[in-house]
């Protein structure tokens, strides 16, 4: 009896030692071979910034038609469905002055300003309240300032919708595919499923391959997109030369979208 326990312990000890050594041996073996280890890198032609930001010139871009044209492009490439009624899903939409800047309204605005429409989208805030409240980290802030969503993780709790002071998020109450023409969707981009929240992503998928956001490209110069932390960037130049305001600064989220009035 004693002998067998002794043998068992010896064997167990040797096995444990073997298990500890195995990974090292495996690493040594693979390191010596001609094959590297599979890994991922950032696309060579992707666009970089320390902090992406957008400036919208509302002197040039302020009509229903112009803004809808941008929304159409955005919604098409991201497979955002058009659902009639209050459940409309939106990444880019429009609002009046008082809807856009509710805390900065004037009771006697100029006629011209009263007629203007303002393009609205997620502001990709510096201190986004949506990120703070998201329990699953489905909404997160990337190193380049873009507030992105990982739809794989979203559980549809809608905390982020309640937290966003700009109404920038939409909830998929129903399967978006029911309201998309599946023959005409952009097959390069996924759709969403029922029960997740969605919003503008500053076209991260386009920046990753070296393209500018679709709305910026379509805006014929009325929108500027660039690096807010680079003093020589195009956005900083536009900001230096024009009077701009941001939406609802009192909410303290530091929006990354600036409006030239």
């Amino acid at each position, binding site marked *: 009896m004693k002998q067998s326990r002794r043998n068992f312990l010896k064997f167990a000890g040797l096995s444990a030692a073997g298990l500890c050594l195995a990974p090292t041996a495996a690493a040594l073996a693979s390191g010596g071979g001609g094959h590297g*280890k599979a890994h991922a890198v*950032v696309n060579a032609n992707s666009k970089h910034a320390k902090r992406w930001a957008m400036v919208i010139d509302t002197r040039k871009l302020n009509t229903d038609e112009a803004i809808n044209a941008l929304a159409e492009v955005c919604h098409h490439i991201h497979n955002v469905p058009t659902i009639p009624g209050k459940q409309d899903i939106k990444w880019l939409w429009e609002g009046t002055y008082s809807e856009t800047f509710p805390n900065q309204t004037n009771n006697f605005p100029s006629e011209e300003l009263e007629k203007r429409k303002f393009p609205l989208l997620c502001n990709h805030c510096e201190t986004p309240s949506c990120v703070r409240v998201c329990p699953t980290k489905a909404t997160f802030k*990337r190193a380049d300032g873009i507030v*992105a969503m990982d739809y794989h993780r979203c559980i549809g709790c809608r905390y982020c919708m309640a937290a966003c002071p700009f109404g920038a998020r939409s909830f998929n109450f129903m399967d978006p595919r029911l309201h998309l023409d*599946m023959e005409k969707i952009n097959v390069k981009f*996924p759709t*969403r*499923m029922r029960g997740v929240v969605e919003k503008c992503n500053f076209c*991260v998928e386009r920046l990753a391959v070296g393209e500018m956001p679709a709305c910026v490209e379509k805006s014929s110069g009325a929108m500027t997109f660039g690096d807010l932390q680079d003093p020589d960037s195009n956005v900083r130049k536009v900001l230096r030369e024009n009077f701009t305001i941001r939406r609802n600064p009192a909410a303290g989220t530091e929006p990354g979208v600036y409006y030239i009035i």
Partner: protein
Amino acid sequence: MQYGGKIIAGLVIFLGLVSLPFWFNMGGTYEQPKVELPKNAKECVAPKEEMRTSHMQLLDEWRDMALREGKRTYISANGKEYTISLQNTCMECHTSKEQFCDKCHTDAGVTPYCWDCHVPPKEAK
């Protein structure tokens, strides 16, 4: 052991019933599903055996790499570059979801929800 006989008889019947599915399947042969391999591609991002056993782990890593880390170029073990994308890379070669993905998934009784969002290539109907 007053009830010994009854207990043992009961156990035997119970075990027999529980293992019924095994008895039913005995003798039958299992045939692996025949998946349709890409016609226009010779190699995958990883060796076949690895893909067969762990494509789900790879896809899971891919989605974090692309979405969360912003790394969208994959360099495989033999140095080839691929774009990290289920829709645009995987389905580029595996042009039929029905003839490739579904075959095994149906056989294994798993229903991944990838396709709730990612768009499979248009199948000729």
